[in-house]
Structure formats: C-alpha cells, structure tokens
C-alpha cells in the first residue's frame, strides 16, 4: 500500500493517453472513410479532405502530452517517485478531463469532419468554412487540456 500514490498517478497518465487516443483514432478513422470516398471520385480534393481528416487527431497528442507531464511530475521519468496516496488521487483526477473530453470530442469532431468533407465534395471553394465546423469541437479539447495541465503542475507544490 506504500506505493498506492504512484500507482494511482500512473493510472491517471495511462487513462489520459488511452482515452484521448481512442477518441482521436475513432474520429480520424471515420473522417478517413469519408475522405477516401471523396478521393475515389475526385483525387484532386485529396489535400483538402486530408486536412479535415487530420483535425480529430489532436486529442491523441493532447493525451500524450498530459501523460508525459504527469509521468515527469511523479518521478517515473526520473527523480523522486515517492508520492502520497492523496497526491496520487489528485494526479488521477487531473488526468480525467483530458481523458474523457479527449475521447468524446475526438469522436464527435470526426463526425463533424465527415460532414465537412461532404461540403468539400460538393463545394471545394468553401473549404475555409468547412474547416470551422470541426475546429469548433477542438475548443473543448483545449479547455480540458488547460485544466489538466493546471492541475498537474500545481499538485507538486501542495503539502499533503
């Protein structure tokens, strides 16, 4: 039970990377199907649909970032890995926003990308506007990322 703190914190890091990665892979995969459909009929639209397909991929990167910061803060990547159970719980809680929001926003951003790929298929000149719709979903992934970073970087200074 002495190591419960580090176990909980590591679980949090894994959760953030896992869930956000799952959301991104789902979103990029779904958008990729639509992108492939449009490219089959009109290969000249490849570059535009590729950008729309890539948009839901950011959540996976944010999840990785959170996992990385957590691992470095708790000493797994070097330094003192002796942290209390309370701190471990806090690290786990700090990883939840990125994990959960990353999963759901990645998935839904993928669906918005699919719809936007439909716009590009019919009106390629409206690519700029088509980008805005899936990009709006990104806002919430960024908010979750900020909350997770603020929490993780502040926990180390707490005296518990």
């Amino acid at each position, binding site marked *: 039970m002495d190591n419960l703190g580090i176990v909980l914190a590591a679980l949090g890091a894994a959760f953030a990377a896992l869930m956000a990665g799952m959301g991104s892979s789902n979103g990029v995969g779904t958008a990729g*199907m639509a992108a*492939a*459909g*449009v490219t089959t*009929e009109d290969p000249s639209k490849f570059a535009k649909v590729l950008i729309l397909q890539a948009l839901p991929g950011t959540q996976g990167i944010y999840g990785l970032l959170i996992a990385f910061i957590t691992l470095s803060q708790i000493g797994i990547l070097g330094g003192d890995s002796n942290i209390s159970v309370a701190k471990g719980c806090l690290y786990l809680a700090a990883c939840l926003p990125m994990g959960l929001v990353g999963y759901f926003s990645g998935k839904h951003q993928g669906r918005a990308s*699919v719809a936007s790929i439909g716009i590009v*298929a019919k009106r390629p000149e409206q690519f700029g506007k088509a980008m805005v719709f899936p990009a709006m979903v990104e806002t919430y992934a960024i908010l979750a990322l900020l909350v997770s970073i603020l929490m993780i970087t502040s926990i180390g200074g707490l005296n518990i």
Partner: protein
Amino acid sequence: MADDQFVYAVARIRAKELTLLDNAFFDQLMAAKSYKECLQLLSDKGWGRTGEESAEELLSVEREKTWDLMGELVSDLSIFNTFLYDNDFHNLKAAIKQVYVGEEVPNIYISRGTIQPEIIYNGVKQHDFSLLPEHMKACAEEAYQVQLHTGDSQLCDVIIDRATLETIYAKAKETGNELLIKYAELKVVAADIMIAIRGNRTGKGKEFFARAMVDCASLDKNRLIEAALTDEEAIYDYLSTTIYADAVLSMKESSAAFEKWCDNLIIKNIKPLKYDSFSMSPLAAFILARENEIKSVRILLSGKLNNLPDEFIRERLREMYV
C-alpha cells in the same frame, strides 16, 4: 460502429451528386434544335458508354451505371430491394402473359430485380410457384389461374399490381428506414388515388376498388372507395381533407400532371437527405434522383423526337434533386 458503415459510400455519393443533371442542363437540352443534338449533349455530359447508343439504350445504360455504383458501395444490395420489387412483379406479369400466349417474346423482362427473371418464368411455366419468393407465390398462382381460365389480362394485372404495392409497403416497413417507408407510402397513395380516379371514370364497382386498392397510413381506403363510387368531385373533396390536398389541382389538370406531382413530392421528401452523412438514406435518395432524371430525359427525348412543342415537354419535366 453500424452508424459508420455508410460513411465512405455517402461521401462518394456526395461527389457523384455533382454529376446529376440540374435545371440549367435541362434548359440546355430544351434549347437543343434536334433530338440528335440532345443525344450529343447527353453524351458530352458522360451519359452512355460508347456514345453510339439509341435513346432507350442510353437510359438503360444509365440505370445500369447507378446499380453498378451501388454494387460497389454496399456489400449487400438487398437493402434497396424496396426499389426492385416493382421489376420482379413486372417480370411476373411478363412471364404469365408469355406462358399464356405460348410464344417467345423478346426483351420483355427487366434484368434488375430481387430474383432472376428465368426463375419467375420457370415457376410460371412449370406451374411450380414454390420456386418463387414467399411474397410472390399466392399472387402468382391467383393471377396465373385468372389469366389461364378467363383470359382477363386486366384482372391479372390488378392482382399483381396490388401484390406489388403490398410487398413494397410491407418490406419497406421491415427495413425501418424512414426514407423507404415514406417512399412506399407515397407509392401506395399515388396508386390508390389513380385507381379511384380511373375506376370512377370507367364505372367500376366496390368489389373492384376493394380488390385493387391497398391500405396505407395516410389515406382512409374505405372513404376513398366511397368517394370513388360517388363521383370525381367526391374524390377531390375527400383528398382536400387529407395531407394530399395539393394534389387535387394537378389531378383536375390531367393524369400526367398528377404523376408529375407524385414524382415531385418524392423528390421534395428526399431533398433534406443531401445533408445526411451517415445513414444509407442518401444512397437510396441518389437512386431515386437518378430514376427521376432518367424519367425526365425520357420525356424530353420523346418530345423532341415527336417534335412536340417546348411548353408541352417542359410542363412534364420533373423537379430535380440538385
């Protein structure tokens, strides 16, 4: 995951929708000086395969192209069976008549159906209706017996037409797809109204109407029969109380105007699917849109071939999906 299975197909359809004929192209066709020029314009637009086809071949090639595309997009074409039962029952009519006259008649079968025309023909010829699918057996036997013993082709057609509508209606409901259910409903409604009008004009009795009409959700069959037994005005009065009140004006104009109204209603109902990216409905809508444009091109080409006035052709052209 099931929600994502049509994403690729719908995206391809979105790109394909750009090749659908729009009103501007129909204006171009209308402005063409001759029938040949129309065929040339269609060929330039990518219609046909060789550029040498006759009008009928051209339309048939285009229909084949649509189904070939659907074959590429979905692994199981049976999801579109609602559109194909019509062809099966047409083939059943053809088979019964061919067996009845005992002569080989070329090109009377439609190739796209849920079952091969040869199976239908063999079933009728051998009087072995067990070869046919469940929804066809009873009507095939009844229609065959009527044709064989009374020679009444009209009654034979009535029996098969009713079974066609019943099958389309029931099978569409089984799919649970909103578009297919609406399509089946509108098909039954259009047929019932046509039966009421034509039956009234030819003085048909209650028994005929009850036998020919099919139940549906948006029309009261008994009230429509009552109206059809009274006079045409009674039919219009009854329809004015339903959601099909708009149809009355076109019905008063002509049968062609009513048929156009029915086709336009289907197109109006499928237009919102241009914004659906995930279900199979946009694929079904594309099939209907293609059928609609093929029908319009057929009308336009026959008009041009017979030197009919532009106004006469134009008032028969359907609303386009794009």
